[in-house]
C-alpha cells in the first residue's frame, strides 16, 4: 500500500513544548513515527553556568510551568548531595506538601484534557473544577498558584503558619471526596473502558529498554518511583504506596494518575499533621565545596535528574538537567505503531498533559495535495470514534456530554 507522511506539529497538541511528529501511515494505520524536537531550546544548562548557586533554583523553576517544583527540588537535592548536608525535618515535610500539591494539580489537568479529547467534556469540567481548589491551597501556602519559589539549597524559603496549615487541611479533606467520585465515575464507565483499553500498549520490556519513567513506566508494570526507591527524606517516614498497573495502555496510565492523587492527598495530610513545632527550615549552606552531586526527584511525569559539578567557585561548573519527557518521548516508536491516526494524538497525550496548544495537522500527499486538519478536526476524529463505540454498546452513559 502507498505510504503517506502526516506531519503533526510543529506546534504539537500534547506537550507544552512545540514539537513535530512525522507519522508514516498506510491507510489509517501508523507504520512508523519520527519525532523532532528542539523548537523550544533555551540553553538553560549553559545559562545556569553563569548563575550563582542560589540563583539557579529560580532559573530551573522556569523550565516547566507544570513541574515548577520538581526541577528546583531535584537541583536542591543535587547541591545537598554535593555538600553532604542534611536538611531539617520541618523543611523536609514542607517540601513534601508543596511537591504533592503539584502532583495532584498536574494529574487532574491531564485527566481533564484527556476527557475533553475523547469527547467527555463533563470529565474535563469536573477535573478542572477540583483542580482549582488545589491551586487555592497552593496560593494560600506559598503565595502563588504556580512557580512557588519555595525551595533553596539546604531547605525552604518560607515557613507555614498555623492559619495556613488549618486552611490547607480543611480544603484537602473537602476535595478528596469529589475526586473520589470523579475517579469512580471514570473507572466505571463502559465507553471509556472500550475507548482507552488496549490502545497504545507499551510493553514492560519496551518500557525497560527505553528507560521510560513515571506513570509511563508504572502503567506498564515497572515499579520505578524515585520517592520510594531513593528513598527521599520526608517521604520515607510517611505511609503510602506506589501505584502500578500492568497493561501499559492509555487506560492504565490514566488509572495510575488518578489513584496517585489519593496517595498524594494522604501524604499531604500526614505531612501537615506531623509537622514539628517550630525549629529551623534551612540548613544554611554557606559555601559549596569542590565536588559533584546527583539529585533526582519524581515529578508528576517521571524522574527529573540533575547533575551538578562545582570547581569551588560560586557558580556551577556544569549543570546537567534531564526532564522525564526526554526518556518518555522515544517510547512512541514502540507504542504508536499499528494504531490509527485518531488514537495517536491520544497516545502521545498519555505521557504528558498539555495539548491545549494544538495548532494544526497537515495531511500531505505525495502528489503535493495539502489538507490542513486543525484542532477541531482532530477532536472530531477522536470523538467520532467514541460515538461509534457508544452505538455498538447501545447506550449513552450519564457522564457523557456531546456539546463541543
Amino acid at each position: 500500500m502507498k505510504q503517506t507522511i502526516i506531519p503533526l506539529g510543529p506546534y504539537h497538541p500534547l506537550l507544552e513544548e512545540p514539537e513535530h511528529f512525522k507519522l508514516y501511515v498506510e491507510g489509517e494505520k501508523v507504520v512508523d513515527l519520527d519525532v523532532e524536537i528542539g523548537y523550544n531550546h533555551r540553553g538553560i544548562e549553559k545559562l545556569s553556568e553563569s548563575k550563582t548557586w542560589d540563583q539557579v533554583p529560580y532559573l530551573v523553576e522556569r523550565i516547566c510551568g507544570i513541574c515548577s517544583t520538581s526541577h528546583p527540588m531535584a537541583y536542591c537535592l543535587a547541591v545537598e548531595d554535593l555538600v553532604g548536608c542534611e536538611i531539617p525535618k520541618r523543611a523536609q515535610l514542607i517540601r513534601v506538601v508543596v511537591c504533592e500539591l503539584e502532583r495532584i494539580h498536574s494529574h487532574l489537568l491531564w485527566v481533564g484534557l484527556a476527557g475533553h479529547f475523547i469527547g467527555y467534556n463533563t470529565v474535563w469540567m469536573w477535573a478542572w473544577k477540583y483542580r482549582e481548589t488545589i491551586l487555592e491551597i497552593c496560593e494560600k501556602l506559598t503565595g502563588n498558584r504556580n512557580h512557588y519559589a519555595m525551595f533553596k539549597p539546604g531547605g525552604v524559603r518560607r515557613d507555614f503558619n498555623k492559619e495556613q496549615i488549618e486552611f490547607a487541611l480543611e480544603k484537602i479533606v473537602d476535595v478528596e471526596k469529589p475526586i473520589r467520585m470523579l475517579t469512580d465515575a471514570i473507572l466505571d464507565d463502559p465507553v471509556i473502558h472500550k475507548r482507552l483499553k488496549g490502545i497504545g500498549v507499551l510493553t514492560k520490556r519496551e518500557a525497560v529498554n527505553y528507560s521510560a519513567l513515571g506513570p509511563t513506566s508504572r502503567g506498564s508494570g515497572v515499579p520505578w518511583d524515585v520517592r520510594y526507591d531513593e528513598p527521599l527524606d520526608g517521604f520515607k517516614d510517611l505511609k503510602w504506596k506506589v501505584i502500578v498497573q500492568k497493561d501499559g495502555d492509555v487506560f492504565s496510565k490514566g488509572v495510575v494518575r488518578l489513584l496517585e492523587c489519593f496517595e498524594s492527598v494522604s501524604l499531604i495530610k500526614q505531612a501537615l499533621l506531623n509537622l514539628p513545632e517550630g525549629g529551623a527550615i534551612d540548613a544554611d549552606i554557606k559555601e559549596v565545596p569542590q565536588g559533584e552531586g546527583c539529585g533526582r526527584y519524581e515529578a508528576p511525569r517521571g524522574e527529573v535528574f540533575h547533575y551538578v559539578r562545582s570547581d569551588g567557585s560560586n557558580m556551577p561548573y556544569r549543570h546537567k538537567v534531564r526532564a522525564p519527557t526526554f526518556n518518555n518521548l522515544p517510547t512512541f516508536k514502540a507504542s504508536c505503531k499499528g494504531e490509527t491516526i485518531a488514537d495517536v494524538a491520544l497516545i502521545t497525550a498519555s505521557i504528558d498533559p498539555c495539548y491545549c496548544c494544538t495548532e494544526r495537522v497537515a495531511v500531505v500527499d505525495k502528489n503535493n495535495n495539502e489538507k490542513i486538519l486543525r484542532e477541531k478536526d482532530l477532536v472530531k476524529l477522536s470523538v467520532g470514534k467514541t460515538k461509534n463505540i457508544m452505538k455498538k454498546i447501545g447506550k449513552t452513559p450519564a457522564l457523557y456530554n456531546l456539546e463541543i
Partner: protein
Amino acid sequence: MAKKNNQKVMKNLKKKLKKDIIDIVQPRENRIYMRVKPEKAPGIVEYLFSKYKCKLCTASGMDMREGIEIIYHLAKEDENMIINVKTLIPYSKLEIESIGKKIKAFRWIEREINEMLGVKFKGHPDMRRLLLADSFPKGKYPLRKNFKNSDVTDEDYDYERSGI
C-alpha cells in the same frame, strides 16, 4: 523500601569490572563514581544496563579543557544506587563507540552530546541534530567552555540547510 546493603554493589562492581576500572569511589551512601578508559566505557555501560539491570538516568558531557568528559548516570533501583561511569575523551581524538546502536534508550542523549560538544559516536544509526536548529553553523559547539554568544552571528546561519 531499599535495603541497607550499600557495600554489595561496590563489591560486585569491583569483582566484575576490576581490570577495566581506573578508580572507583563511593563518597555517599548511595552514589558510586568510577573512572574508566574511553575504549572500555561503552562495554561497561552496556553490561550495567543489560546484565546488571540498571536504568539509564542520563549522560552528561562536559568540557574539561583537556578533553570532553562523558558521565553515564545509571540507577540500580532495587539496590538504591546511582552508578556514574566517567570517561575522558581527549581533544586529539574526539570519538567513542556508540551505545545507541544496540540500546535504544541511549540514542537521544548521544545525539545531544554530539551537537552540543562535538563528540563523534561511532556506529550511531541516526546522527541528526536533536535540539539545535538545522541552520545552526557547523563546527560550533555551544556547551564548550570557549564558546561565546558572539561566536555565532546571524550571517553564520545556513538557512538553506533548514529549508527556509
